């Protein structure tokens, strides 16, 4: 879902390092076209379907969206293929932000261009600390993640000029808003 709010409150889903785009959206679903509305929804229902068994379900069976709003990840999130279906599937499932240690460049760029989610970078490793189901608030503008349970906050790397592009809804919406096209 292309979203505009820069304060995101909800549950986190925690994953490790090197979550590649085959895990985020397996290749067999790439016959779905993201610009066809019914197929956009379907992509959301298959988000993270490639994760190995052992991870809790990201999308519950029979549902099209996820109960989680934020993903907390380790290094190199979104590595592998350039498929834009990856940030699209996550956004379609309801994810509003990812907080990762680092990103692969194509995924990072695609997340911004599509406006589907904020690709936030943590300054330390969080995925060993946070637990799936934790309630958090991500303040994208201030660059802070707060855990509701403990009240503790963690700083993020400032996203800077990326924020207005995503909050506008992506590259084209931003370019139109700025009178570029």
């Amino acid at each position, binding site marked *: 879902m292309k979203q505009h709010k820069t304060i995101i409150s909800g549950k986190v889903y925690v994953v490790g390092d*090197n979550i*590649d785009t*085959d*895990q985020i959206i*397996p*290749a*067999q679903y*790439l*016959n*779905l*076209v*993201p*610009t*066809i509305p019914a197929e956009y929804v379907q992509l959301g229902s298959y988000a993270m379907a*490639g994760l*190995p*068994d052992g991870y809790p379900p990201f999308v519950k069976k029979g549902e099209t969206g996820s109960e989680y709003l934020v993903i907390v990840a380790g*290094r*190199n999130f979104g*590595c*592998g*293929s*350039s*498929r*834009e*279906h990856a940030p699209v599937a996550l956004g379609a499932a309801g994810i509003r932000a990812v907080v990762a240690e*680092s990103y*692969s*460049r*194509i995924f990072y*760029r*695609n997340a911004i*261009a*599509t406006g589907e989610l904020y690709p936030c970078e943590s300054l330390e490793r969080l995925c060993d600390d946070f637990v799936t189901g934790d309630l958090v608030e991500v303040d994208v503008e201030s660059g802070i993640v707060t855990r509701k349970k403990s009240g503790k906050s963690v700083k993020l790397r400032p996203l800077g000029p990326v924020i207005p592009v995503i909050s506008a809804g*992506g*590259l*084209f919406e931003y370019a139109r808003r700025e009178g570029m*096209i």
Partner: protein
Amino acid sequence: MTITERILAKAAGKDSVRPGDNVWVKVDVLLTHDICGPGTIGVFQQEFGKTAKVWDSDKVVIVPDHYIFTKDEKAHRNIDILRAFVKEQGIRNYYDPGTPHYKGVCHVALPQEGHVRPGEVIFGTDSHTCTHGALGAFATGIGNTDAAFVMGTGRLLIRVPETIRFTIDGKLPAWVMAKDVILRIIGDIGVDGANYCAMEFCGSAISSMDVEERMTICNMAIEAGAKNGIIAPDEKAMDYVKARTKKTISPVYGDEDAAVKMERTYKADTLEACVAEPHLPSNYAPARERSNVKLDRAYIGSCTGGKITDFVAAASILFGRKVSIDTFLAPATASVAAELKTRKIKGKTLVEIFESAGCRQIAPPSCAACLGGPVDTYGRTSGKEVVISTTNRNFIGRMGSKDAPIFLASPLTTAASAIAGHIADPKEFIR
């Protein structure tokens, strides 16, 4: 400036650029295929209008290759979307499945058809677009939205990457291929070791490589997180390009004293045949240390390992021998498939060699099982098959089944292992 910086400066109309600069570049080639093309077209038409025309129909190249030989209805529907678009836009560089024009794997077809020229800027909706740096172009993968932007404007805003230089000097042993070189490099720096960087390859071992081997190296730059892979175009590269295009070629070169982020040097004669173990391309191990790994399947194909050079290498090992495991062969393009029938080793065609060795029926050209695909895809894993493959990724589930572990290797190592039934060093099989 490095070669990458100079190409981007030229494309941006600037005298010079520095790593970290954000520049608008003019695009020379936009590549897409059947799984990202429809989505790119969707965004293009949404944003520029249903009747909008692409910025230059001669610069758009559409090569269907991913889901071709399948009954999947959506895959067929996606080809129809491409057909309608190229017709309405007057795009001639389209290679339609089911016709004599069909080519197959986009990253092997693109240079074959003369669309890769040194000094140019190539964007593709596929991460292995970095392959084309082998011919001295700046080539990198982008998503559908960026590609739609290029379709409408012919430009893209990109950040100039820092360069990491890899020098491979000396002579590679006869049983060591380009695939072994790049797997060793990725093993040394990690899957994000070259994040956002240009990986530049040079040295006498690189110069000795033929163009297809150079493509194998640049192809896997993305597996180290690189923005692009690149090799300065020498006479070999220029001859290859000139034989395939009538267009003017304006190669670009870097300055020898240009600053780079990091340098690594390898002595070619110390390199070994290797594998990348499950589940990361960076899990390097010498093949001779993994002979305890029993295999169920061998797969030879993809833009990384399905070119004619790769099949000749495999056939040189399989000649007069038999495979002991299921061995799948997926030539990358129609011309590779055709050459399998005519190229000979000791009087036997490659097809005859593979048949005598007991390999499976050769697939029609496409990406096939490199990325799994629809369930009826040739070579797709469905259970716990332990696979050795000449492809580029071994993430969990990459070739179909989450329970089927994948070892990446060169065509020589893959062929040797197919005979042995376990991971085997081709050193023992070379004649």
